[in-house]
């Protein structure tokens, strides 16, 4: 449920770090809470994100929620597949439902994120 190789935020985004590139998505728990996702609005390449600032929105049949940048940096790519198939966020949140690839501005920011155990504890708390 909570992959151990990822880092997490309290706002339920996950990050996979490969070199200086972070892949960003939302957790299985978040996708489940939102319900059927019908639309994801993401920034285009070149947009510079600030850590913890909203970078997009995810819309489900019952709510629209902000997405918050787990790390700051420049957007390299947004997942174009989500435009036609936003339900990928529900069906494969840690895989095909990824949202952004970001060039990490400050690697130190990654260190401040939750690890899998801490995120699992957060979710368990409710």
């Amino acid at each position: 449920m909570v992959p151990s190789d990822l880092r997490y935020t309290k706002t339920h985004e996950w990050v996979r770090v490969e070199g200086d590139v972070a892949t960003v998505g939302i957790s299985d728990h978040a996708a489940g809470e939102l319900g059927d996702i019908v639309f994801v609005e993401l920034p285009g390449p070149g947009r510079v994100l600030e850590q913890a600032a909203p970078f997009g929105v995810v819309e489900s049949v019952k709510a629209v929620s902000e997405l918050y940048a787990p790390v700051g940096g420049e957007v390299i790519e947004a997942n174009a597949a989500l435009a036609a198939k936003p339900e990928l966020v529900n069906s494969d949140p840690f895989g095909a439902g990824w949202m952004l690839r970001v060039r990490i501005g400050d690697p130190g920011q990654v260190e401040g994120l939750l690890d899998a155990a801490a995120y699992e504890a957060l979710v368990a708390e409710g």
Partner: protein
Amino acid sequence: MAYGPHTASDRARMLAALGVGSVEALFEAIPEPVRARGLDLPAALTEMELMARLGALAARNRVDLVSFAGAGAYRHHVPPVVDQVLLRGEFYTAYTPYQPEVSQGTLQTIYEYQSMLAELTSLDVVSASHYDGGAATAEAALMACRATHRERVLVSRGVNRQYRETLATYFAGTGLSVDELPLVAAGPDAGTTDLAALERALADPDRPVAGVLAAQPNAWGLLEPMEEIGRAAHAAAALFVAVVEPVSLSVLAPPGAYGADIAAGEGQALGLPLAYGGPYLGILACRDALVRQIPGRLVGLTTDLDGRRAYVMTMRAREQDIRREKAASNICSNQALCALASAVYLAALGPSGLRDAAATGAARAAELEAALGAAGAPRLHPGPYLAEFAVAVPDAVAVHRRLLGHGLLAGIPTAVLEPGDPALADGLLVCATELTTADEIELFAFALREELGAGSARGRAAPPAGAAAGAGTAR
């Protein structure tokens, strides 16, 4: 039985729970000078006295005038079926219901309004309505800013000045900015948007433009080069907003055909009477790609569990009851009754009826142009127009006032519409619709010729005021 929501003891209990001594203490955060201090109302009147008083006030309106005034609000024939449908109790509210799907009939009327306006504008999505043309125009500009993540819009001075003022008010304090585009001063394109100025404004690399707003027909009745304006906007990755007059869309190219991303406009001409500025109807339409940016309610068509046709409020998640301060708009109220009037009007006239209304108005306007020209008031601008145009009249404000004595509302002085512009100091903006008759045009031309003749002869043999008034009553 107390009809008030809170009795004195209710209030006392609430104040005690809050630990506040008085209701006034709750308003301490509001500066004293701007706090309301009761209403300054006269003593109560009996019903008889009140009706006499209101009757006397209403009698001060000039409802006898032959009108050539337009400038955003137009008199058209409204078939009686429109009012008859509006009077039905099921519809008689300005609001969409709060448990909307229970009211399938109401949702169907909104859906039909949206569908007919989508057809008229050739755009994909139409909101359930806004307050008026100015509000819809401002919302369109905000949509452009949200969609492009840019903070500056360009609005042609050919857009109705009141809409530009509403836009400026909406933008105040948001960090967004509005720059106005001048109109061409002279030559064959005089009075239309200055395309060179548009190109210059779009070229500023430090201030990227979210949207360009232009009106068709524009505030002087002139036809704008909408395709070119849209092309320039798109070349700069800005959206193009067309501010439109809906009756004209039956004979002019619709916004969807010339590349507009959003259309906004005043819907009064579609079945609503002229009434001191309202209640009117804000039309807002956009391309499908912008559906999540359009504010206000949207009604969609689907099927229920048994496969039957069902109308629903759709895309609700964008609205303020869910998104709070991040909603597409903080104004979710609409003009459901006015939108219903427009839907009934459009259904009653049909496409060919609406075309007849627009085409007849245009033909009457051409007759009006010829008659006023012969009376000594040539057009101010040379370019093509549909049913509204400005004419040069020396001392126009005074002439306009004197023509009231002939029973004529001689359009609107251009100096009133655009104060402070010397090029527009001496003109009248006039329009014709399918209601304008040959007799009315003749009366206007006759009275104007007399006025202009009197103006040039003033000091020699100015006719007595009574003679001028007599011309009006003799027709």
